[in-house]
């Protein structure tokens, strides 16, 4: 995949933490925010600048959930599967979303429109089961309502 990584932008992020220790995770999170994923060139630049082996940078980037090593879709759908949502029927919501956009959790649609994630508690259990699209919460869901909500994002 060809991507446009501006080394200067990466350097700017790194420079914010000048002189501090243990910043790799913070830098990766900032780059993730900037590009919505972690392109390989960015990881290489970070590895060079911080003097941390590429394998170690990769290991950290692949360990944490907030970091993505593949490009993510335009809209991010997060279906909460925390315990409260689970007992209120969240698995059926996830099923329905997966069928509606024809991908599994953790995947992105081919047209790069949607990425689907399952998350383990968004802290708004009163609304469960809940699905968050681009930060907007849709609560007290039933499977029959899912498609109607997703249509708003097409």
């Amino acid at each position: 995949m060809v991507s446009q990584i501006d080394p200067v932008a990466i350097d700017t992020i790194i420079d914010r933490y000048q002189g501090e220790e243990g910043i790799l995770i913070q830098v990766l999170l900032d780059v993730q925010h900037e590009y919505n994923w972690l392109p390989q060139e960015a990881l290489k630049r970070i590895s060079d600048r911080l003097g941390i082996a590429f394998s170690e940078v990769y290991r950290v980037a692949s360990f944490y959930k907030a970091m993505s090593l593949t490009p993510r879709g335009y809209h991010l759908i997060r279906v909460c599967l925390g315990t409260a949502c689970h007992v209120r029927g969240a698995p059926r919501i996830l099923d329905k979303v997966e069928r509606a956009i024809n991908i599994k959790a953790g995947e992105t649609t081919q047209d790069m429109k949607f990425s689907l994630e399952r998350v383990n508690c968004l802290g708004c259990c009163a609304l469960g089961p809940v699905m968050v699209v681009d930060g907007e919460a849709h609560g007290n869901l039933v499977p029959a309502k899912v498609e109607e909500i997703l249509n708003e994002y097409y």
Partner: protein
Amino acid sequence: MAQLKSSAELEAFREAILNKKGTERPCITICSGTGCRAYASETVSTAFEEEIKKQGLEDTVDVKTTGCHGFCEKGPLVVILPGEICYVQVKPTDVVQIISQTIVESKIVDHLLYTDPVTGEKAVHESEIPFYKNQARLVFGNNSKIDPTNIDDYIVLGGYSALSKALFKMAPEEIIKEVKNSGLRGRGGGGFPTGRKWEECRYAPRDIKYVIVNADEGDPGAYMDRSLLEGNPHSVLEGLIIGAYAIGSHVGYIYVREEYPLAVENVFIAINQAEEYGFLGKDILGSGFDFTIKVHRGAGAFVSGESSALMTALEGRVGEPRPKYIHTVISGIWDKPSTLNNVETWANVPLIINNGADWYASIGTESSKGTKIFSLVGKVNNTGLVEVPMGTSLRDIIYNIGGGIPEGKKFKAVQTGGPSGGCIPESLIDSPVDFDELSALGSMMGSGGMIVMDEDTCMVDTARYFLDFLADESCGKCTPCREGIDQMLTILTHITEGEGQDGDIELLEEIAEVTRDASLCALGQTAANPVLSTIRYFRDEYEAHITEKRCPAGVCKALISYYIQPDKCKACLICLKNCPSGAITGGKKQIHVIDQGKCIKCGICFDVCPKRFSAVEKISGRPVPLPPPIEARTIRERKPRRKH
């Protein structure tokens, strides 16, 4: 703002804001915790600000967006001070009425009050609502009175007076003694005595020491730490600074989940303000004590909430646990002595310093002191954050505060302690809640998640759910945890899919025990709890799945079928139109029939069938009856009688 340079200056400043404020002026507080925000509370706040401007009332009434009030079920919540008039489920369209009636004419808007679903009684004040009435909100109570982005609000309520007392009137050893005597135990899950931790760290042989706030709250269904940090960040900072002074640390870390953007934002604001006022930085309040706080965002790994793993994550590495034969209070971040406590634990510290160890120890039970915040969620009427003295019974929490189970369903179990906890059945619902009682029941306190389950919850599926979670979150470093959890998950999945065999229960018990005994960290050591506790209390449900291929709660997809009862179907076409797999045949006046071969068991037909018909039935453990023959599917309606 010039930095405050002494205890006296802080008190003078507090006096000054109190005098300036005047207590009579009404203040509209709007809950803006994450729960209420999801209900669009921000549009309510904006509506208030606009309406007040429109009516020219800027000088007579204040508007304040506060942290989480806790009664998430009824959000967005609006409380009007000083009278504490409480309005629930407020919409932007209600704002004009609230201003014109309550603010201008001092009248109550009746339809926005909380109505007790049982008695039908309305409650005007927050304190009269049963949800609040039966709590003891020592740590969480100030959330609803404070704008978390304004340090003055915290100071008005006595904020930083504990710090001033600790710095000027107490020696570090005295503080540690006070915390030890209070009986405070870690609120993050382990329940380790906080004072002992501090003491060991203070006397650890190194110059540089660290203190850490663990705000990597990862238990699904628990969000009290988030709400505290979002809603009252200074109470956590104050506790941390006191702890740092007692231990002899000059650098602290707050490790907060990236998924909690509001908490991250409010913590940064709070730190900046505390520095500006002289509560952080060099020569705090003129005492000569220096202390700074750094914030690290956690990137989402459940296992990194474990203390040694969190410390490796703070170093910027993969957050995996290590064996703890050398405690982190001796060798933690960068091999320096480090004291880690969770958000709620730190927030308890100012209370103990202000009121004394004896006062604190008078609350709670023999082995667990103080109060605990629980997040009461799941199948319960009043979802929300609940703070009660240790030792309160599960029944009081679930029924008196939580309002019982919705829709008249039967209570089945309550799950405490997150994925490492267990399920407690109805027969034990009168048990008091404290660290040791919950452990004796095969569960644990954990960080305080309390998930209520009703008759529609399958306990085997629940165990499978937690093991699935843990399998995903196990870092894989040690074999017993990695393999043990995986094998238990495989067996549980088989059982829920109708492929359970005789001997599975015993095998699960055996693997669970080995995983518990041989794993490196708490994640693996406690992974057995969801399995063992459900087997202990709900063995019959396991047996039904294995021998009868029946899911008593009607949850496990492979073991249930949906069936339309011919005598109840009114041929309304709703299920037929909503079926995503085209499995339902029928038509106008034609009884609908599910083609079991095409059915994907999504349950949509069951949901959409009008309640007054309730024609769709879940069947488990017995064959699905054959549909009526085609010629018998026409519904003959009785002709209405003609009027003469």
